[in-house]
């Protein structure tokens, strides 16, 4: 009961924040200096043409009418048409979403799988070589810009290892799985290979960050009296360590991860640029360069809403791990 109530509260907050995101994005466009029709028309277009376009786009309406229209369109997932290609923004964004999700999930997976054991080992073998190694790695990891790491991986690894492609995305997971169902596994291999460098690029900062958090969290939890109590009752050390200490360490890690997911999404934007990965981030950069406002707005709203949703998931995980959260 407590959990359900908690989730409903979180969802309502999510709706409010989403509304805020949409509003900010809507008004962002009106801060832009210059005439929005300038990019749509050839420079020599006459004033009548310009005026007609403005009327077509609804730009001659009062701002609140435009705002109302914008919101009502969004509710039915109508993001408008791209100012540069004329295609539906919703479709453009949707077609790029899988690439970004694959990349972000792969990077998170790499980070969690590597970082938590590394952090645990580092905390258990404090002030031993393993600990110093892990600390050094995490210091460098959080200080390295990921686009540079990506460039370095392309220059120093990609060129020498032929199986790992350095640019583009030959196929999506769906294609690979479809091939697998037809008995061909090599596509899945290719799909994984193309993800290797981008996932490392995007995941390194997170691996470093989670290692750091796990280490310091474990050290803090290990000092708690319940750990002594676990030992006193004869609980096997591994059980004490994982079932009790690590579980409690995960609570603050999950909180920080929720806050840091923004960095992951931002990182995805730039990683996609480095690896010519056809995801949302690259689409956003292209749209900005084209001054394609409808596409920019659509992409940012989708990213913002995605971020809100992820945070709700993170909060639920948090509530699952820490029973005190849902308690009144």
């Amino acid at each position, binding site marked *: 009961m407590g959990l359900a109530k908690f989730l409903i509260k979180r969802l309502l907050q999510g709706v409010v924040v989403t509304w805020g995101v949409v509003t900010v994005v809507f008004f962002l466009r009106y801060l832009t200096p210059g005439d929005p029709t300038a990019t749509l028309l050839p420079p020599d277009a006459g004033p009548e043409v310009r005026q007609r376009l403005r009327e077509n786009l609804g730009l001659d309406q009062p701002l609140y009418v435009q705002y109302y229209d914008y919101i009502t369109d969004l509710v039915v997932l109508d993001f408008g048409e791209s100012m540069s290609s004329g295609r539906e923004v919703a479709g453009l964004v949707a077609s790029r979403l899988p690439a970004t999700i694959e990349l972000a999930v792969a990077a998170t997976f790499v980070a969690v799988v590597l970082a938590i054991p590394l952090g645990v080992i580092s905390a258990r073998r404090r002030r031993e070589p393993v600990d110093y190694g892990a600390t050094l790695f995490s210091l460098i990891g959080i200080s390295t810009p990921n686009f540079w790491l990506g460039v370095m991986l392309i220059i120093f690894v990609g060129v020498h290892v032929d199986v790992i492609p350095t640019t583009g995305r030959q196929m999506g997971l769906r294609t690979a799985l479809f091939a697998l169902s037809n008995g061909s596994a090599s596509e899945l291999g290719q799909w994984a290979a193309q993800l290797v460098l981008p996932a490392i690029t995007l995941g390194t900062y997170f691996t470093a960050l989670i290692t750091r958090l796990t280490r310091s969290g474990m050290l803090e939890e290990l000092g708690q009296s*319940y750990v002594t109590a676990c030992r*006193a009752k004869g*609980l*096997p050390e*591994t*059980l004490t360590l*994982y079932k009790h200490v690590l579980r409690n360490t995960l*609570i603050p890690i999950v909180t920080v991860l929720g806050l840091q997911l923004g960095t992951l999404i931002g990182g995805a934007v730039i990683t996609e640029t480095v690896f010519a990965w056809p995801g949302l981030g690259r689409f956003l950069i292209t749209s900005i360069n084209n001054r394609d406002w409808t596409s920019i707005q659509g992409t940012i709203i989708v990213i913002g809403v995605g971020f809100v949703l992820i945070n709700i998931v993170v909060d639920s995980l948090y509530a699952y791990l820490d*029973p005190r959260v849902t308690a009144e």
Partner: protein
Amino acid sequence: MAPKLEVEGLTTRFFTEEGQINAVEDVSFSVEEGEVFGIVGESGSGKSVTALSLIDLVERPGEIVDGAVWFRSPDLAARIEDDTPEAVDGDYVDLQSLSEGERRALRGTEFSTIFQDPMSSFNPSLTVGEQIAEAVEVQRRARANPRSVRSRTQGYGLAKFIGDSLLPTRDFVDDASHDRAVELLEMVGIPDPVERAAEYPHQFSGGMLQRAMIAQALAGEPSVLVADEPTTALDVTIQAQVLDLLAELQEDTGMTTVLITHNLGVIARMADRVGVMYAGEVVERGTLEDVFDEPAHPYTQGLLGSSPDLDGAADRLDPIPGNVPSLVDREMDDRCYFADRCPKAMGECLEKPPEFAVDGEHTAMCYLADHDYEEADALEEGYFDE
């Protein structure tokens, strides 16, 4: 009767950045089978570290540097005699010389502990029932396979943890242990034990949680119970209830109990014999009657004097003038550590007194236990002020 525990010259130090701290220094006492041995002292006298040293839970930067804790267990002695003869003396086993695995195997089964603060001694994010059931499970596995220390710990690692987290049905603790945990909760007087077992520590009151901790401590049917300030964190009325419960359970099970507290009322009510700790040392020990009725050490006299009503359970010690001395090694002289607060300090107190026998088993680390106070030798007032 042969003692259950013989502590000999136990010395525990902490090696911190501020320097070496002599928390427990050359402490000796024995505890008879089935009795309650009380250790009393002010905060910072080293009594809690003594408790942790008994159950081998001193953590870095602390270290037991010297001494032996002889534990009478004919079975264990017979079993390990061949492998580690240095740890065995007749029916006795020296806990300090045992292998790490053997020592751990004794925890929860032979030795159990009740800690001071129930709120922080339970993991906040697991149910109380689960945590008690773990203690039952440890005991159950040990009984099922008494020879193998490893069998209890085998196979629980990170992979298993992830498996358990993803599939809640696979677990370290089985259903029988959960049922036993509920029984234990009922035994310590917790109403609606089935419902309470499924609750988290923050949903319990302090007194109820301390009862739950007692249930957890009893899960392994231990032969020795170390209770470190079991009632300090509780309200006065609850204290009395918890003490009653402890006394009753101790009588029923006949467990040997080491009770550590700063509360003389608790000692008077529970203990058969008493050790008084000051600055990491046991300065006086003997039967309850010896120590309380005829205290030989001025410190014990001061403690008793500051506690007007020994029958009340909730007496706080009025402080004796002055402060508990620093236990930092380099700041300690080799003298009677109480001399600076002692109303009867003499010249010879600048040299450390040995342990004098007062009467039979009643001993005290004070020259006054050997000869009378001589005013002529008295240290002048303010001698220890800088």
